């Protein structure tokens, strides 16, 4: 009995424990307990069962059909052998070994924008789900029943929500969307037990402040450094969107990366990828946290491939710039200032007769995750070299979009950026227009992503060579995850409304 007891304790704890702070700080191999998989946002897995030698044998373990018209744009969570996946208004719990459905929750019909859901987040045995009409729903993970439902923002004013909240200790940190109106962006920390607001941080001044911007929406999940106790968040474009005259100056803190204390919401530092943006280039792309050498000195870094076409490396303790460079065609700036921030060229603001701008409105990359591979020092990103034409005229006013823009041309490439120099070590063509797939790297030297036509790809991290592919019927509009259960590694990707789980033959 004495011998059995420790085993029982271990296995009992491992069977059903939900998500606690220890799991989020150091996620076990049999979990993907948060949007990015861990707090770093590297979307890099230590798993090595699937490797460059055997990936050619990868096959379908199972598929889950959501039965919905909407495309999956969410990253699934995996906790205690159960996957949680969403599309707008819908959450499913799915057996991660077989793909069969355990329960399905449907949010009541509502008038919010139904543009996507990036997934749920989890604290203990509770799931947190955001809705098109800007509510935060707390669900019981065991059966999908509603525990509480709180309003995060007023959807009647033009807010909506899509993001997967960031859970840090006893805070559920939520952000909002809403750039069709002149609205203030903000982050809120919510009590996971009660739904009560703990703090609120506003990214821009209240609507109606003279000569001031609004906007700076907070629609993507941030990252967290437990040692510095700082969360890192990207903010969206200013409003009015294409007319910058109504909001002179830099328009802080729109298009910014901010470091906040998760317990108080107090700002520690900020860095602005797009001062005075007039092209809708949200700086919400994952702020990836990396500890490593930078030009001979150990650094705690933050890296972002930003929608505006720039790759930034910052010291995340202070916000000091270490490297600023472009990773594709960019024609809207006059260079970089002393702080490492691009200087917008006023001649490239939208105009009545049009301005040709690189990249286009979708940006050189967008919300799907990049990945960082420490072994090769490569930052891997789904890039969209592109051009658009931007128009704005006084008659269009200074509210909401306040102009018009049109994509002209674009293509999709996977770029591997050397983080110390910003140079692109290799590029892998992914097809016309854009691919939009997120990126996962694994410690065995593999990349999982997708192309513009709907192929799921496994590439060798070192040189970008294709080692495996499968036609999934529709481009991946989410970011892949991986986990190991019962000694078997699974890679989960989505296409359309279907979730695919890939594994080696048993």
């Amino acid at each position, binding site marked *: 009995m004495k011998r059995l007891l420790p085993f029982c304790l271990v296995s009992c704890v491992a069977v059903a424990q939900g998500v606690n702070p220890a799991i989020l700080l150091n996620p076990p191999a049999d979990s993907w307990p948060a949007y990015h998989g861990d707090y770093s946002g590297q979307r890099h897995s230590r798993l090595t069962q699937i490797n460059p030698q055997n990936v050619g044998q990868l096959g379908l373990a199972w598929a889950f059909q959501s039965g919905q*018209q909407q495309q999956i744009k969410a990253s699934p969570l995996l906790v205690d052998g159960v996957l949680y996946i969403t599309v707008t208004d819908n959450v499913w719990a799915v057996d991660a070994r077989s793909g069969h459905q355990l329960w399905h929750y449907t949010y009541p019909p509502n008038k919010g*924008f139904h543009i996507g859901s990036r997934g749920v987040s989890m604290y203990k045995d509770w799931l947190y789900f955001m809705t098109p009409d800007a509510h935060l729903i707390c669900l019981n993970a065991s059966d999908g029943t509603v525990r509480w439902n709180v309003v995060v923002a007023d959807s009647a004013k033009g807010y909506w929500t899509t993001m997967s909240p960031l859970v840090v200790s006893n805070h559920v940190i939520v952000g909002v969307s809403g750039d069709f109106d002149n609205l203030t962006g903000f982050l809120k920390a919510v009590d996971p037990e009660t739904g009560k607001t703990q703090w609120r941080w506003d990214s821009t001044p209240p609507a109606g402040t003279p000569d001031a911007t609004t906007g700076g929406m907070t629609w993507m999940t941030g990252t967290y450094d437990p040692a510095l106790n700082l969360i890192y968040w990207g903010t969206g474009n200013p409003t009015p969107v294409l007319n910058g005259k109504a909001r002179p100056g830099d328009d802080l803190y729109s298009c910014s990366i901010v470091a906040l204390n998760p317990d108080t919401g107090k700002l520690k530092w900020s860095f602005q990828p797009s001062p005075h943006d007039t092209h809708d280039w949200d700086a919400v792309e994952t702020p990836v946290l990396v500890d490593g050498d930078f030009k001979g000195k150990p650094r705690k870094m933050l890296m972002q491939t930003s929608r505006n076409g720039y790759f930034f490396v910052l010291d995340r303790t202070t916000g000091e710039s270490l490297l600023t460079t472009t990773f594709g065609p960019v024609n809207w700036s006059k260079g970089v200032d002393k702080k490492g921030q691009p200087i917008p060229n006023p*001649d490239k603001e939208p105009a009545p*007769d*049009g301005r040709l701008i690189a990249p286009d409105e979708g940006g050189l990359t967008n919300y799907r995750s990049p990945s960082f591979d420490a072994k090769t020092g490569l930052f891997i990103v789904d890039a969209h070299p592109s051009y658009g034409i931007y*128009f704005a005229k006084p*008659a269009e006013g200074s509210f909401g979009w306040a102009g*018009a823009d*049109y994509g002209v041309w674009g293509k999709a490439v996977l770029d591997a950026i050397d983080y110390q120099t910003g140079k692109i070590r290799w590029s892998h063509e992914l097809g016309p227009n854009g691919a939009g797939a997120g990126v996962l790297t694994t410690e065995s030297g593999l990349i999982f992503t997708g192309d513009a036509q709907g192929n799921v790809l496994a590439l060798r991290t070192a040189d970008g060579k294709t080692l495996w592919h499968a036609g999934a019927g529709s481009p991946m509009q989410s970011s892949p995850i991986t986990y190991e259960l019962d000694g078997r590694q699974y890679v989960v990707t989505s296409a359309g409304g279907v979730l695919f789980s890939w594994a080696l033959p048993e």
Partner: protein
Amino acid sequence: MLASLFMQKSLMTLLATACFAMAQTPGVFLQQCGFCHGRDAAGGEEGPDLTRSKLVAGDTGGDKIAPVIREGRPEKGMPRFSLSDADMAAVVAFIHDQKTKAEAQVGKRRGVEVADLQTGNVAAGRTYFNGAGKCASCHSPAGDMAGVATRFEGLKLEERMLYPRGAKAKVTVTLASGEKTTGELVYRDEFTIGLRDSARHYRSWPTSKVKFTIDAPAEAHADLLAKYTDDDIHNLMAYLQTLR
């Protein structure tokens, strides 16, 4: 019961019902279409202004709009939507309603008027066409470009000038046997090449098993994008608009 009754009704009947309902609420349009096409259907993130759309102008009771919604426009990033007949009718009615409203507005419209694109210089545009732009190496004002300004105008003309989406490309595939097949390029990804041959038959091969060369002259437009100044574009537009 309600659903089955709806199925038997024609789209036109539903349209009449929906028109009334839509006057109060944008409903399905707002939820499913509003993010890209704007709450008022006059353009949003990436989606065009539907109130100025030629397709909408030529639509009767959804005969043009509904197929686009059902099939999507994957090449432009628009997904397919499978709406119920009732929802489809509501969306169609809403778009027509917004078009009527937008046309009643004078001088306050978002979007691009033909008059906005008249800031260029015709002579400079002609010089660019024949010189730096190398347009004349493929196009001729008396040949393929004759009357181009009567076929396209304003933003449509400028968009086609910058990059003609959907322009046909030719591909020649050489099989392992040495046999060559030439046709219109229909599909290409990293793994598959597909063409329509002279008999209009579709044929495809794994890219690893064949050699192929693609002749896509329109791609020269993409190469120019990095070279244009905004003045070059406005001047070229001015010149093209003289080709009537």
